[in-house]
């Protein structure tokens, strides 16, 4: 006798699953935006000639890259909220845990973005920044008007690919009890005793989204890469 599939819990739970997917997408979008902004600042600090800034950025990036995402999420879910509550005398009712976990996720991904952006900045020829200085620009003008626009154009495919990886990583917020898409699918499967179907369904949904997105990135890369 083999396993008998019963997919009937899926149609009824679609609205619930969609709510979960919205949370996954929201976490992804938030982490991508924070990751790119904070990652750019970190990359600029790392490449800066001011030693303490460069040490701070190197320490930050190396620390986050040495620790598993699961650990980072647990830190920000279990430990950081307690710390903040005692530090700022928060009313005990306020639940910081979910926003803290989302913040931890974004801070973690920033370290990875910063490495991509650093490589992107370093790929811009040195003459560009010398030329900007020769025109009388300050450091920040040169960065904003000359270096970063070129760096970002080179990095677009890598940033998007990292976005896909990040979207997959969001499933790990499972450890913090945030009801993302995977958490929702697991809950439905657990409730109806149809874990097999729901897990396979969740896997298929992730596959379709990530595979199509990565094919799109590939096409984009072909279209815009210098032939």
């Amino acid at each position, binding site marked *: 006798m083999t396993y008998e599939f019963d997919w009937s819990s899926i149609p009824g739970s679609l609205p619930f699953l969609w709510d979960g997917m919205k949370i996954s997408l929201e976490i992804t979008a938030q982490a991508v935006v924070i990751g790119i902004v904070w990652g750019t600042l970190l990359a600029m600090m790392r490449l800066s000639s001011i030693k303490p800034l460069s040490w701070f950025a190197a320490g930050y990036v190396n620390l986050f890259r040495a620790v598993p*995402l*699961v*650990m980072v999420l647990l830190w920000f879910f*279990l*430990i950081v909220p307690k710390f903040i509550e005692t530090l700022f005398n928060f009313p005990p009712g306020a639940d910081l845990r979910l926003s803290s976990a989302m913040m931890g996720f974004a801070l973690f991904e920033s370290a990875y973005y910063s490495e991509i952006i650093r490589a992107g900045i370093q790929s811009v020829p040195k003459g560009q920044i010398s030329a900007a200085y020769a025109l009388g620009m300050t450091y920040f003008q040169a960065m904003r008007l000359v270096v970063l626009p070129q760096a970002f154009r080179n990095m677009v495919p890598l940033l998007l690919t990292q976005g896909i990886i990040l979207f997959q990583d969001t499933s*790990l917020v499972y450890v913090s009890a945030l009801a993302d898409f995977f958490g929702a699918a697991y809950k439905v499967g657990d409730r109806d005793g149809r874990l097999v179907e729901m*897990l396979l369904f969740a896997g298929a949904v*992730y596959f379709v989204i990530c*595979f199509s997105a990565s094919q799109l990135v590939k096409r984009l890369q072909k279209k815009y890469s210098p032939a």
Partner: protein
Amino acid sequence: MGYQWNWGVFLQPSATGDDTYLGWMFAGFKMTIALSLSAWILALLLGALVGVLRTVPNKTLAGIASAYVELFRNIPLLVQLFIWYFVLPELLPVSIGDAFKQSNPVMQQFLASMVCLGLFTSARVAEQVRAGINSLPRGQKNAGLALGLTLPQTYRHVMLPMAFRLVVPPLTSEFLNIFKNSAVCSTIGLLELAAQGRQLVDYTAQPFESFIAVTISYIIINVTVMSLMHKFEKRIAVPGYIGGK
């Protein structure tokens, strides 16, 4: 701040009485190492095979290899792990599935985690191996064929010895990743380092000490692996290439 630091907590006898909390941590540490190393061996073997297949002229074989890579790269690790652990035993023939479900629970968790991490990482290893083979000058393959070697012989004696040495540096980062990714296996109850950390928080009520200790353990693993691989990379570097002697 009202927090009472107590680093001595690690030396206290644990709740089950047969060990100290430091012993729990060390057991988790050993589990993380054992899991990551065994999964890494699996990933290297499968990844090398799939990576080579992606470069062969046979369209069917290359297609299967490419589907394998896409499958394992586009599903989150956590989902894959749950599928290995919760779904697969149900879909196997009943006798095998039951044998699995009746075996030692730690063995079940370890097996599912090892296969999951191994296959997940093998798809990434395969991509690096493929890139390594494709980065070889085309003349190497042609020269091998011109000397009368068959295609498998050319792979075996000309291309692979070069390609495997070239992919060592990019594989280092995959090797580091497998230790970090092993923390995901705490979600199915495998008592590796991250899971022991959570357990310590519950039992000792000293969350800071527990998490700091676990985090430092991961950093130690990371630094050790990196310095070992750096030595290995130097020994194996191909003269004449950037990074070679």
